[in-house]
């Protein structure tokens, strides 16, 4: 499997606080990788570093064979990194389809093409019926889906999902899981930050656990979940079975 994304020795400091420490991970083409860990582990920071919101204090980020460490978010999107936001950032004054058209414009500069692409993506994400609705009128679960649809319209190679499944009802979460699977089936690699273990573990090919800014463990979900270090990180010492 070829490596699509690689972080090499990422350390990120915010005026004294070390959010990420020497984090080196890689994501292979076609994988669905889960980035998990307890609160404060540094998941969001790493996520935002990959998306280009921050420049790392140390280390480098490589995407599709290119050093993208210094590239701003807009340039990373053009290289093929798409992302959603944990706190949904829809374009509230625009309709659902207009929101997606904005995404589609990255690769389709002719308006007709962008519109066509946007329609496709809406069908794919199940939002076609809501195309003309104002984004501000959507229910939260739909807004989440719009986030994903918009990012998909940019035709990314790598899709970064920031807690897209958190806080959904079980039914909504299942639809979400299905969507992520279908996204991967179209050839897009997925890196998702998640909290809800029961939903994420059956979905991902590989899990990377962060704790206190460092990579704790990585591997197959079934193994990671049973790793005593992971259990300790989440639940504290008393729950560890064997050390």
């Amino acid at each position, binding site marked *: 499997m070829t490596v699509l994304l690689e972080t090499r020795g990422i350390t990120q400091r915010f005026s004294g606080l070390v959010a990420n420490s020497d984090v080196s991970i890689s994501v292979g083409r076609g994988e669905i990788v889960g980035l998990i860990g307890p609160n404060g582990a540094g998941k969001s920071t790493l996520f935002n570093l990959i998306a280009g919101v921050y420049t790392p204090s140390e280390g480098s980020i490589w995407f599709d064979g290119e050093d993208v460490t210094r590239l701003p978010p*807009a340039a990373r999107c053009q290289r093929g990194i798409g992302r959603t936001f944990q706190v949904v950032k829809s*374009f509230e004054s625009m309709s659902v389809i207009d929101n997606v058209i904005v995404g589609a*414009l990255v690769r389709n500069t002719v308006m007709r093409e962008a519109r066509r692409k946007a329609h496709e993506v809406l069908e794919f994400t199940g939002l076609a019926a809501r195309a003309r*609705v104002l984004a501000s009128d959507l229910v939260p679960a739909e807004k989440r889906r719009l986030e994903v649809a918009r990012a998909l319209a*940019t035709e990314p190679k790598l899709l970064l999902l920031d807690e897209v499944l958190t806080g959904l009802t079980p039914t909504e979460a299942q639809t979400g899981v299905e969507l992520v699977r279908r996204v991967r089936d179209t050839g897009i690699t997925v890196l998702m930050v998640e909290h809800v273990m029961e939903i994420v573990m059956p979905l991902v090919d590989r899990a990377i656990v962060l704790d206190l800014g460092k990579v704790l463990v990585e591997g197959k979900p079934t193994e990671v979940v049973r790793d005593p270090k992971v259990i300790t990180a989440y639940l504290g010492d008393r729950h560890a079975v064997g050390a």
Partner: protein
Amino acid sequence: MDKDFTNRRRRELVTAAIFAALAALVPLFVKDVYVQNIMVLTLMYAALSQAWNILSGYCGQISLGHALYFGLGAYTTALLFMKFGVLPWFGMLAGGVISAVIAMALGYPCFRLGGHYFSIATIVIAEIALVLFQNWDWAGAALGIDIPIRHDSWVTFQFTRSKLPYFYFALVLACIAWLVTWWLEDSKWGYWWRAVKDNPSAAESLGIDVFNSKMGAAAVSAFLTAIGGSFYAQFVSYIDPESVMGFQFSLLMALPAVLGGIGTLWGPVLGAVILIPLTELTRSYIGGSGRGVDLIVYGLLIVLISLARPQGLVGLFSRSNPKKAVSR
């Protein structure tokens, strides 16, 4: 769905054409010079406000110093004509280009400022320009420039016997401003601007160069505003810093859009059609300028609109649900 969309676009064009045609016929029936004057001003402000709307409405960068570009247009035309004999038609273009360039140059520092900071900076910059022009002797300083009218001519764009040529020019200007907006609405620029307005960081994550989009909006907006300023110089034949770069102009360019519907296609036109005649009428009926009634009326309208109906009055006229009308 695509069919609905193209139909609506076509309807918008047809509506505009009808309005323009009707407007063009009005002078044939209305001969009163005073009323014709109001009509010319209404059309001019419609054009100016439409131009302002591009940067401040669609792109969300609220400029309260647009009089800068208006004044630059007026002065460029007047100075080129009076000092170098350059015809106003070329002066107009020159004014437009100069304004666009300055708008972009100012964009470098200004667009890093968000929200209120940006707006305040625009006020300050326009104020600086005003003071500089008031002290610039070559440009007439505080006394301004008087453009003597020799004879009626389209070449020098001067007319004394009738206001009609000015009227038709203003109508064409308003149509151009409207068309530019119409075209931009369904272009990648229009989408970029609205995305930048609603959520700049989300826009970035979708590959939009936020800074460049703002620059584009600023350039187009400044260019059109300056042309309006050039027109004004020829229309009134006398300009001075206070009258073309004063803050009241910045305000007057913004108000029609705010009233009619900021960030909409028809808002500035609707706002101008309501506001400008209203201003002139209050001024003449309450007696003399400087009594403040027009200000009281403006002010109340603005407060009411921004609190009760921030999307402007334009939504009242759409047949379907106002919210649906915005989306496609």
